[in-house]
């Protein structure tokens, strides 16, 4: 299987089926939710989602669920071991002849970047090591969103969060670069890793179409523009996501059979400022005075990333 086969070419090729209905209590314009909707279009209904505490926990509020498939809310650090328990149990039942293969489920973890990079990372690393057969969907809104946008290990350098505000002493806000979840997973050689964006539904659908046929640990990191935490108008989610790609800040890529492949390489990268200036969390980089050095660092980190592949 090549990692760049694409079955879907146009939007109208996508599966018309919706496994996730509208009308949830998540914020208008939530990029992560759109990513999940697109993913489930491809995965279908025979999915169990093991959810970590975070924004998505509010998808299923008793007695409602927007999902056609199954849902299990776990804890902030425990969605992956819960997935292990479900997977093991389904395997046992199939193997013992207690359940036909037709009853089998795709086991999927749904967790934010905070859970994925921080509290849930130890158990996840262990599950990758055990070669757990599951899909991990990390919606990356670059902070602890559900608790009001505090710093996570995935918060970007130069962005302000509630617990890493920009001050006279610490003008940049968050002072460390994001953890590289893609590379951390890659070090354990899982079956598949991909980054996806709600702005790239065809790329996303193709990646899920491929991954759903594989076995073993499969990670998706979904760029999740967050109007509430990032500070932009909900109608601009797609614009922000487009800028994340065009500036090269969010590379669309895959890891499969030992190789990393970039899917949509921005030919001529738009300056990162175009992406930053539209979001309140980066406002302090421009107002009252431009933080030239911080802006330059953000740009140079993006350039350095791409220079490895250009």
């Amino acid at each position, binding site marked *: 299987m090549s990692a760049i086969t694409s079955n879907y070419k146009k939007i109208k090729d996508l599966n018309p089926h919706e496994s996730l209905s509208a009308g949830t209590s998540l914020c208008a314009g939530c990029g992560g939710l759109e990513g999940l909707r697109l993913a489930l279009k491809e995965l279908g209904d025979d999915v169990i989602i093991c959810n970590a505490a975070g924004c998505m926990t509010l998808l299923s509020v008793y007695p409602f669920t927007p999902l056609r498939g199954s849902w299990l809310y776990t804890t902030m650090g425990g969605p992956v071991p819960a*997935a292990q328990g479900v997977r093991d149990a389904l395997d046992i039942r199939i193997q013992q002849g207690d359940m036909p293969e037709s009853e089998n489920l795709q086991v999927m973890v749904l967790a934010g970047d905070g859970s994925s990079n921080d509290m849930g990372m130890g158990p996840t690393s262990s599950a990758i090591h055990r070669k757990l057969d599951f899909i991990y969907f990390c919606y990356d809104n670059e902070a602890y969103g559900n608790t009001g946008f505090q710093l996570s290990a995935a918060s970007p350098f130069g962005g302000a969060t509630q617990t890493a505000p920009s001050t006279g002493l610490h003008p940049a806000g968050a002072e460390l670069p994001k953890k590289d979840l893609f590379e951390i997973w890659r070090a354990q050689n899982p079956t598949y890793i991909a980054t996806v964006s709600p702005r790239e539904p065809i790329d996303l659908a193709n990646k899920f179409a491929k991954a759903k046929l594989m076995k073993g640990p499969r990670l998706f990191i979904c760029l999740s523009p967050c109007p509430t935490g990032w500070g932009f108008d909900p109608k601009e989610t797609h614009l922000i996501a487009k800028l994340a790609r065009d500036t090269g800040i969010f590379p669309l890529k895959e890891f499969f059979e030992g190789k990393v492949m970039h899917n949509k390489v921005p030919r001529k990268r738009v300056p990162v400022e175009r992406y930053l200036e539209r979001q309140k969390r980066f406002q302090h980089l421009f107002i009252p005075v431009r933080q030239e050095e911080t802006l330059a660092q953000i740009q140079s980190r993006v350039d350095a990333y791409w220079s490895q592949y250009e």
Partner: protein
Amino acid sequence: MKPNRKMMLTGNKAAAWAARLARVEYVPAFPITPQTEIVETLAGWFADGTMQGKFTNMDSEHSMFMAAGAASASGVRVFTASSSQGILHGLESLHTLCGWRVPLVMVNVSRALATPITLEPDHNDVLITRDSGLIQLHAETCQEVLDLILIGYHMAEDPKVCLPVLVNMDGFYLSFTREPVSIPDPGLVEKFLPKFKAVQPVFQASQPQARASAVFGGETYSWFKIQQDLAVRHAEKVFIEKAWRFSEMFGRYYLPVESFRMEDAEYVFVMSNSFATKGKSAVLKLRDQGIKAGLLKLCMIRPFPEKAIAKALKGCKKIAVIDQNIAPGRGGIIYPEIVSALFPEKTAGQKVLSVIGGLGGKDIREEDFGTIIQHLGNPKPEGPLYLYGEQDLNTFLKFERIAKPEEVARS
């Protein structure tokens, strides 16, 4: 009916045998002394094909309990075991899976909690789960460990219960002590406990469900929590039914509380777990001296069998509740529970003494029971009696002297 097989087993081996007889299909595991022998034994049996299903080495107790609960919600019979720091580490998961209302059995091998770190037993670990929604059964002997696990599965899987059950045994005193244990005939056990068939829908394609959803508002939250409380309370009746059925098939009978020489007892020790054996022996010796002593053993701690306790202690004037645990600033954890059970039918002139002993594996010696009797004879109310005497202090100081001889000499 085939004759029962008797074997010399440690409490840990007895627990593993119970899981095997129950035809457990899934064991997520993580080692911790003094529990490890249980999961090692089961690992061996899964590895050599004696047991069918899967044994998964997990990365922590938090993960282990998550996996256990999720597997039960997916339709297999689950067993797991832990102790001490493992219980603390997994506590979030324990509360979570109790709310999931999943039937399974876990064993806790009691070991005192850090700090200071030790391997030896007391009950602070198991009692930290007191309010989690687990059903708790406490074993005095290795035989009880085995039997209570089998009864535990029957109870956990009852449609009116659907809750995890914890069976407790003392580290070292039971976990590593070999006792004769009767292994019931597997065919009979299969009759007592048929193959697991979940009464609630389980995760599979034809029955999509949202489980453990968030709630908005106290009305919905309270509804679920009250349901849980009622189910745990109901488990007392179910336990009695299942234990009765067990006795009909295997000849050993259990009740939520066990009365030992309580008929005419004037002095009563309320105890649980393996030290109850020491208590029983003290009772017999006291009776030889003409002191009418008795013992009430708590086999079930959650649900708390308060009516049975009140009934058993009715009219008793001198009661000592021996807690092998300590809640700093409050004392023994079981003491106030016993007092509140007695309150509705309080006997005039009754003295209920709080006794704290056996912390971190410290022995409760025969003379300690004599000390308790003396204190019970004193009509004045008094605070907790710490079973910590001269001999204990000397043992402690002995080590101090070796480490810093000059300082000890000066003081």
